[in-house]
């Protein structure tokens, strides 16, 4: 999952012009959407881009609802962390089963790939149908609604975590399978020939070599879970609100005053996401297999 090294040729002015023209459409569009988007969000958060009236620079938007903001950070970070850990463990196990290429592993591969293609909102809807107190699972298990744990909208965010772990474990299984199917196979065989047992091969061969892929997958799913609106909105509870739900509610509120507060929540989420990415790159540099 690494980028091919960037071509670092000086190039003639003509070549440079050609290169610039080819990347221009993608770069300009990305700059407008990301630069403009994050830029306008930041300006709004610091009171520099009011919907009406004069700009009033300041950090009031960040301090207006300290309780709600802290609670949102706590909920979002915990839900993202728990679902990412589950997704990494299940996804890595699934990848190991998939590369064993037995009949049952092909079924796991097909179901995993199917899961990756399902939109998160649809996945959230079907997890809701499965786990709500009159859902399909309590029906199948014969458990009455009052005895069924509050998965949907419960205090532990069970259904939301299950949805995120389900979808992201399929994604991690897919990318780890891709890594396992390369040269790692021969190392695994060599270790087996030298007498390494299954657990030893997992610990000393498979894990170190797939660590970069697992880390990247974990970072992508963590950032996704942190910024996912629809899953937590549909399957979560209304208080405390996670960051995306809080931001969108403030943004859509009747009062235009809450717009800067929505932007502040969005900015905090972006900083958390970028910090997670930075930590991942720091961790990647320490793994042996990262080139």
């Amino acid at each position, binding site marked *: 999952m690494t980028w*091919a090294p*960037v*071509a*670092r040729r000086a*190039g*003639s002015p003509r070549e440079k012009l050609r*290169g*610039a023209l*080819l*990347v221009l459409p*993608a770069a300009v*569009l990305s700059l407008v*959407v*990301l630069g403009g988007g994050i*830029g*306008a*969000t930041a300006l*709004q958060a610091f009171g520099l881009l009011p919907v009406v009236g004069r700009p009033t620079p300041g950090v009031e938007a960040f301090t207006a609802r300290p309780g709600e903001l802290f609670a949102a950070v706590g909920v979002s970070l915990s839900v993202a962390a728990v679902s990412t850990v589950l997704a990494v463990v299940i996804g890595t196990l*699934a990848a190991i*089963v998939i590369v064993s*290429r*037995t009949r*049952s592993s092909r079924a*796991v591969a097909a*179901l*995993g790939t*199917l899961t990756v*293609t*399902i*939109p*998160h*909102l*649809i996945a959230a809807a*079907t997890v*809701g*149908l*499965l786990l709500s107190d*009159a*859902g*399909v699972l309590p*029906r199948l298990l*014969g458990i009455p609604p009052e005895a069924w744990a509050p998965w949907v909208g419960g205090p532990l965010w069970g259904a939301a975590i299950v*949805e995120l772990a*389900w979808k992201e474990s399929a994604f991690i299984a897919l990318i780890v399978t891709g890594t396992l*199917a390369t040269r790692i196979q021969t190392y695994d*065989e060599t270790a087996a020939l030298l007498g390494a047992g299954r657990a030893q091969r997992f610990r000393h061969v498979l894990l170190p070599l797939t660590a970069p892929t697992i880390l990247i997958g974990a970072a992508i799913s963590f*950032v996704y879970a*942190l*910024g996912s*609106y*629809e899953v937590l909105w*549909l399957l979560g509870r209304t208080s405390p609100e996670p960051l*995306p739900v809080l*931001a969108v509610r403030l*943004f859509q509120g009747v009062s235009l005053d809450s717009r800067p507060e929505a932007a502040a929540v*969005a900015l905090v989420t*972006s900083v958390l*996401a*970028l910090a997670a*990415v930075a930590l991942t790159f720091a961790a990647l540099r320490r793994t042996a297999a990262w080139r």
Partner: protein
Amino acid sequence: MTAVDSPLTRSRGAGKALRRLLAVALAVWFALPLLPLVLWSFADRWSFPSVLPTALGIRSIDQAIAFGVVPALGRSLVLGVVVAIAATLLGALAARALTFGAVPGARFVSVLLLAPIALPPFAAVLGVNVVLLRAHVPSLVGVAMVLTVMALPYTAFVMRTAYGAYDRSYEEEARLLGAGRLQVLRRVQLPLIAPALARAAFLAFLVAWSDYIVTLIVGGGEVVTLPLVVASAAAGLGNDAAVALMSLSAVAPPVLLLVGVLAFGRRRTRSSKEVSA
């Protein structure tokens, strides 16, 4: 994928049983959440304690139509195709330049194209909404623009991997034999990168097809796609059958596309092997 089942690493005895048990558990993990879609879609009545639907029927179809599933499906398809074309084209152009060319600020451009993965979409969307409104961009165009940027990491990545394995000497040879630039593009480059283009377009389609929050906020209620309809039905009570059926209709198109893309890739590799043999 290479064959991985080798006698050296194959499980035996208790390990084999454990591995099989694990495979079954994983299959259940991936399949179980899909069960409600199958069971509820054609359940006219499913009173509580019973394990299976009490009355089968197609009343869910009428309910789904009442929710506006048909026009929503059409809008989702159009949005998916537009974003797939735009993001694949832009991603392929940028990837080619970044792989072979001399791009000023290449590292910055690479990071910029990957950045949407590292940012929560709603954060950029709240701001971009202001920019697009002030620039008077129509909401549908705005949604397509933002989703194209969100799909660029995937298309640029797939196309860079493809161009990394691409031998430009075929192009030079064709030029030497008198082919024009357009002929080289049509007869040499496109056939060689076609499977990667198909994969990139599939991923970009999936980004647009799956999106909820961008369409909700940038679309401002004017672009009602399938996920928006399912969301409003799922947020209400007693719509279980309609939600299940609409969800099925949202799951099927990407799966069909994926099967097509995989078959296309396989045919390509086979025919290229036949040519080289």
